[in-house]
């Protein structure tokens, strides 16, 4: 690596570090964060209701973990993850242009890709701090009787790892969308709840054009229970390949977002 490239990388890293702290602080105080924390209570509430209804009934062994797997698939993976990463990812650029605060960042000695990277890191961490505690509590409630065993914790660890990868990957994609488009939320909604949902039911290799395909490929094969049809048509990619694909998608869209942000002009709406 030549001197200029090394210096540019150092510049991006320093800028990202400076930006990260502030937006993590600001993100924690944002109204949307409070709303998302409340939203994260929903599966906990539902899990509590389920467990309460089981009082006095002898539940079959493993039913709690099966319900947890369904929670993961239906609520966390296909709804909560998308919503969180969509709103935080697109806001990396859009909140600055809509709030007309971009000049405060652009007229400082900061690398533009560093700004994107710093905000991406701050919002990804924030998303993880919302989603993982919610997942953990839901797991503890549902898997209550089997917590002593290693299997239950392995399932949780795998689920958490998939969500972490999902957060990093989707946030990178939505960050790119926010940098590229003015009305990125709308396009993001279509992608998140249209494309990602529909394409994963297409047979053959078409479903490989979605992020959720690779996330599902990292999970154990179809769980039992009422919602098993959701994974019915999944033709999984091998875990190592799925992991590689997710890392590459994240790096690609994050790199592209940084590149675009560096060269794009943002005009305030006046």
């Amino acid at each position, binding site marked *: 690596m030549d001197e200029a490239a090394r210096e540019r990388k150092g*510049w991006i890293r*320093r*800028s990202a570090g*400076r*930006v990260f*702290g*502030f937006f993590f602080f*600001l993100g924690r*105080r*944002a109204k949307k964060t409070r709303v998302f924390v409340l939203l994260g209570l929903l599966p906990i509430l539902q899990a509590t209701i389920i467990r309460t209804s089981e009082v006095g009934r002898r539940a079959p062994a493993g039913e709690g973990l099966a319900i947890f797997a369904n929670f993961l698939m239906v609520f966390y993976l296909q709804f909560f993850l998308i919503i969180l990463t969509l709103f935080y990812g697109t806001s990396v650029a859009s909140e600055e242009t809509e*709030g*007309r*605060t*971009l*000049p*405060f*960042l*652009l*007229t*400082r*000695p*900061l*690398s*533009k890709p560093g700004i994107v990277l710093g905000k991406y890191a701050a919002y990804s961490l924030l998303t993880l701090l919302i989603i993982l505690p919610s997942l953990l509590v839901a797991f503890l409630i549902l898997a209550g009787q089997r917590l002593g065993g290693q299997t239950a914790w392995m399932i949780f660890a795998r689920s958490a790892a998939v969500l972490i990868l999902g957060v990093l990957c989707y946030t990178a994609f939505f960050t790119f969308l926010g940098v590229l488009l003015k009305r990125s939320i709308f396009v993001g909604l279509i992608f998140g709840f249209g494309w990602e949902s529909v394409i994963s039911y297409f047979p053959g290799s078409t479903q490989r054009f979605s992020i959720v395909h690779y996330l599902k490929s990292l999970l154990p094969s179809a769980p039992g229970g009422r919602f098993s049809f959701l994974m019915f048509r999944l033709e999984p990619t091998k875990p190592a390949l799925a992991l590689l694909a997710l890392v590459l998608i994240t790096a690609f869209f994050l790199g592209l977002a940084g590149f675009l942000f*560096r*060269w794009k*002009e*943002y*005009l*305030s709406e006046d």
Partner: protein
Amino acid sequence: MGDGVPVLQAEKLSKWYGNILGISDVSLEISGGIQGLLGPNGAGKSTFLKLASGQLKPSLGRLRIFGEEVFANPRLFARIGFCPEYDSFYAEMSGRQFIAFLAKLHGFSGAALQEKVAVSLQTVGLEERQESLIKTYSFGMRQRLRLAASILHEPELLMLDEPLRGVDPLWRIRIIKLIKDMARSGRTVIVSSHILPEIEAMTSDIILIHQGKIFAEGDIHYIRGLIDGHPHQIYIKCAAPRQLAEKMIGQEYVSGVVVDAAGGVTVSTSQRDRFYEALLHTIVERSLEVEEITSPDDNLQAVFDYLVGK
């Protein structure tokens, strides 16, 4: 700059927003002192400052600061301060938190950061309200906070877009003094405004910008000369309008007098300073009670329209 390189150099600089012209074929050099950028709203002042602060890239031509291209050149911003015109801030934070955040972006930390924050807030008189949320500040206070944000790193070049907008008279004087002090300490300041007296109070070096082009450039006296030829209208509302009108009719510097039913007199004059002098005399001499004195066309747009022969 000591090495002969201009602080700011624009060469045939043009910027379009699609089909809309921002600025066209602007060439100028700025080397030290205070430079006033004067023009009516929509003239292209903000576009020029956005180009000079690297927020926009030129459609044509080039713009260099300290000899370097500005767009996508973040290193330059350790030496540049920019005060935007928009009244926008990050929500839910105090003035001190905001300035401290910006200081961190400049790489300050620890005691140096605390000092920069304290000095910049003190300079704009916000030290007592520094812990209050920005959303509780008045418009003028927010304007001063933006100014603090632009000077905290002691830039060599300071660009201020309408810095006196919404500021109370006392702070107006203080900010003007601050700008002059910065120039005296060897920094370069570019100030934009659409109000001539504001610019006049800070500098005698003015660039007149109109419809995206530099209309005139030079000393304030030259600009004043152009503007003084413009027949002004001055409206005076008083208890005895007819008495006042009577006094004004026939004066060589008055070209027209109209009295309206609401107790107002509209006087047309091409020698505004002489007229105001005479008006003051008349008010004192006849003990007239004056409710209001305004200039309906005393805005830069009217002056420019006159100058460009509309």
